[in-house]
């Protein structure tokens, strides 16, 4: 039986938490949903089937999926190195991982232009990164970089390296050990990291707007489309796309969770 008699402090705490969650999480969602369907379902349907809107959504999803693949692979490697290896500058690298969380994406976008732009140091870089979707991808990878790493790191640290060593002595190769011992252990963390990466990537605006230049049909992502639609008084388009992005993010979460359950059952 749980303690039922809350103290006054306890009640206050609970109130603060509920108000906090309500104001910050539920109220905006409710406002978004009610605004989207203010004039019924039709404007929503029209807005999200608009080819221009779909194009931006497609770009956003492409960026998010590719960024997630990159960050899943690189994130595992970085987390691995940070946990399992000792080297000069490890502390610095570990600190740098959080940089994308604290630095303004717009600034990073601008720095990228300074670097890869017409007069930048890296202007002869073989891939055109300034004002291209490749540049948007690089920045999307950047802003969503910490999630996989920070999810996996504590799990790797917590499991220690003895399980891997045990596998080695039992004859498993390093690669086999990774797939059969380490991967199953970090799978949940990795999945969650990927979900966060996808969500963060889908939602990124500032960095991709700056680096991409927001050219319609080529470097306009869904979030840039939302911003432009608001400015153009295309409220139906803006709200519908925002809602759609939210729904996609939630669907990703659900699908990932389902995959996890199936995996365990089999």
């Amino acid at each position: 039986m749980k303690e039922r008699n809350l103290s006054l402090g306890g009640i206050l705490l609970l109130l603060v938490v509920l108000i906090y969650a309500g104001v910050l999480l539920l109220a905006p969602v409710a406002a978004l949903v009610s605004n989207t369907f203010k004039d019924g379902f039709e404007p929503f349907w029209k807005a999200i089937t608009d080819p221009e809107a779909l194009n931006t959504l497609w770009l956003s999803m492409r960026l998010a999926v590719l960024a997630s693949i990159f960050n899943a692979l690189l994130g595992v490697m970085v987390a691995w190195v940070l946990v399992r290896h000792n080297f000069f500058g490890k502390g610095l690298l570990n600190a740098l991982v959080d940089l994308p969380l604290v630095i303004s994406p717009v600034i990073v976008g601008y720095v990228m232009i300074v670097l890869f732009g017409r007069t930048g140091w890296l202007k002869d870089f073989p891939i055109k990164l300034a004002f291209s979707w490749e540049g948007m991808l690089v920045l999307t990878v950047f802003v969503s970089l910490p999630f996989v790493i920070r999810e996996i790191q504590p799990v790797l640290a917590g499991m220690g390296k003895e399980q891997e060593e045990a596998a080695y002595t039992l004859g498993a190769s390093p690669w086999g050990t990774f797939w059969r011992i380490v991967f199953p252990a970090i799978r949940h963390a990795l999945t969650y990291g990927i979900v966060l990466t996808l969500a963060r990537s889908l939602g990124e605006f500032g960095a991709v707007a700056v680096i991409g230049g927001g050219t319609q049909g080529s470097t306009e992502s869904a979030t840039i489309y939302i911003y432009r639609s608001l400015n153009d008084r295309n409220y139906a388009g803006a709200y519908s796309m925002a809602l759609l992005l939210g729904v996609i993010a939630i669907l990703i979460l659900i699908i990932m969770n389902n995959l996890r359950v199936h995996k365990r059952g089999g």
Partner: protein
Amino acid sequence: MSIYLHQVTKQYEDNTVVDDVSLEIEQGELFVLLGPSGSGKSTILRLIAGLTTLNAGKISLNGRDVTHLPPQKRHTGFVFQNYSLFQHMTVAQNIGFGLEIQKVPPAQRKARIEELLALIEMSEYGNRLPSQLSGGQQQRVAVARALAQNPDVLLLDEPFGALDVKIRGQLRQNLRSIQKRLNVTAILVTHDQEEAFELADRIGIIDKGRLLEIGTPDQLYRKPGNHFTATFLGNANLFNAHRNGTMIYIGENRIPAPPNTEAFAGKSVQMMFRPEEVVIVPQSAQLNGYFFGEGIIESIAFAGALERVAVKLNPSGEIIQALISPDISRELGLRPGDAVKIGVKNFHLLPTE
């Protein structure tokens, strides 16, 4: 020769953790590496398993030079202190992991898993996950997993360290009987001398990366070769002495030298005797054993089956530790403050430090 280490050295930067260790272990032997924490004993185990690379020396297992082989090719079974079972696999999957890696056919694999489950008396637990087992059960599974591929050598790194004192004894007996039944060569690392005595065919004493000496438990306890072994393996009374002619001189006192100590002739030595070799009688009574000196009883403490008596030696003030049976103590009416005569039944000579 099952395990052969020749002048093995391991350094981390400037720190030598294993220093020129040579060792030979016979087939079927249970060898215990005993030493304080940080002495390098676990590193020796890891060097044998190939989990750590060495800086110098040579390691052979069953006559096969494995010095530069990766852990996968050394045919060792390793039991880690925290068992390190694969958390997402069942007990059976854990035990069968190595067999699966070696592509042993499923039917054969299944039979072997069942055999090992029976060996560790956990036949009902094959489908459990490690998280559903007690510490002792996990430890047994770890042993079974390490044994699954009939390794050349079983390496156990403090396998009882994380367990309750109560179940340790039981598990030690299990391990000992499994090891003898399979006649597998094993090295067990521990810092617990009681555990070492209970399990070991032979013990190697490790301190500061150096293998100080090797011997049977009895040898090392009664006739240690050096000061560290003497004090690490239980309480020891140690006195500076000198061997001259056929006698040992301790201060004013002299005692006939034991046989086979001619090597110390004319040298300063340390005289060592365990507390249970000490005899204490009232001043008036007849002493049984060599007379060592006189003193005053400082304290008498209950120590289970025996009483621990501390006697302050006259006139040096040094303390002698004695273990005597409560019966004798009562019979003699020993009390703190009593003046007593002190005798020694058996003693041993050590080189001075």
